[in-house]
């Protein structure tokens, strides 16, 4: 087993939310954090453009939000716990989010989870 430090080897299909991502995604995550409040969720839904401007999202983040695309949101620096609050606005669960990211139907994704029993 290796020490904590320097193995830069990527883990397939996995993005580590580190300082680099935290800086990149700050505005996006800050907006998503605001969705803890029902009032803010409503404000976002009333005028999505204005709400994204208020938090200073960059073009990549704005596009990912517009596309409701989780892989794009992560690429833009989103952290999954904050993104879950964004997904919650649309009633999406972590299975819906998992299905979207893996290109499966929700039923297929759930079956994949069950198959981990074997």
């Amino acid at each position, binding site marked *: 087993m*290796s020490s904590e430090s320097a193995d830069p080897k990527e883990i397939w299909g*996995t993005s580590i939310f*580190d300082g680099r991502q935290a800086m990149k995604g700050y505005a996006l*995550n800050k907006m998503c954090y605001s969705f803890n409040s029902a009032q803010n969720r409503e404000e976002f839904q009333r005028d999505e453009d204005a709400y994204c401007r208020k938090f200073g999202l960059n073009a990549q983040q704005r596009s990912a939000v517009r596309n409701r695309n989780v892989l794009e949101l992560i690429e833009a620096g989103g952290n999954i716990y904050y993104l879950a609050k964004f997904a919650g606005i649309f009633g999406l*669960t972590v299975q819906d*989010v998992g299905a979207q*990211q893996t290109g499966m139907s929700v039923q297929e994704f759930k079956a994949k989870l069950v198959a981990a029993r074997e």
Partner: protein
Amino acid sequence: MATIVGGIATSHIPAIGAAITGRLHQDPYWKPFFDGYPPVHAWLDRVRPDVAIVIYNDHGLNFFLDKMPTFAVGAASTYENADEGWGLKPVPPFPGHPALSWHIIEALVASEFDLTTCQEMQVDHGFAVPMSLLWPDRTEWPVRSVPIAVNTVQHPLPSPSRCYKFGKALGKAIEAFPENIKVVLVGTGGLSHQLEGRRAGFINKQFDLMCMDKIVDDPAALTRYSIRELVELAGSQGPELVHWLMMRGALTGHVKRLHSNYHIPISNTGAGLLLLENAA
């Protein structure tokens, strides 16, 4: 003096909170999971702890990325649960134990664990779901609590080895508290799961079962993993195992496993449950 009566490790997935509210205990999806808990309830009824020390991670309710403490200890008389944005119904506030909190803070800092102290602290599902699983009545909490939040959100995360040592220092601190109270440790979260990326839905049953086994009699073996290795072997959220290691570190060298349960899947997760008692 305070006595540590035992340790419990349990999943803290938000969907469990929704299932409790919806009374889905007998639902075929949920039954194998909830059926794990009555032996723990019977133990709690018998032992009647006064305080639960709950080790968890905040998922963006109390802490944002503007200030992200590695270890944060609650020192409030009450901890509120609140809306997290995706529909989980908040539960009643949890009574704290500020005197024990400050005792723990002083002892841990003296042991060179530099903490963030929180006189106001909201607790999210990572704390509230385990409390709801252990004391399912949820109208009035029969224990006071001390929340300990660990950063398992933004890397770098504290290593398994560091967390295990934190647990050892925590155990010593609790046992030096001068009041005659009974304390239970609760390590929450895990086991393997990954919410994000193309590898979303990754679960590693063999690794989870190995962890549930090793943590009883050979926890030091688990402290040799790096965080990166835990991500690789147990998914992005797999490092929540450190909460279990902190609970285990606070117990004595030898423990008895009174009960365990493991079920796949609950939400996207391999859900584990362990009840440990200090061996005489």
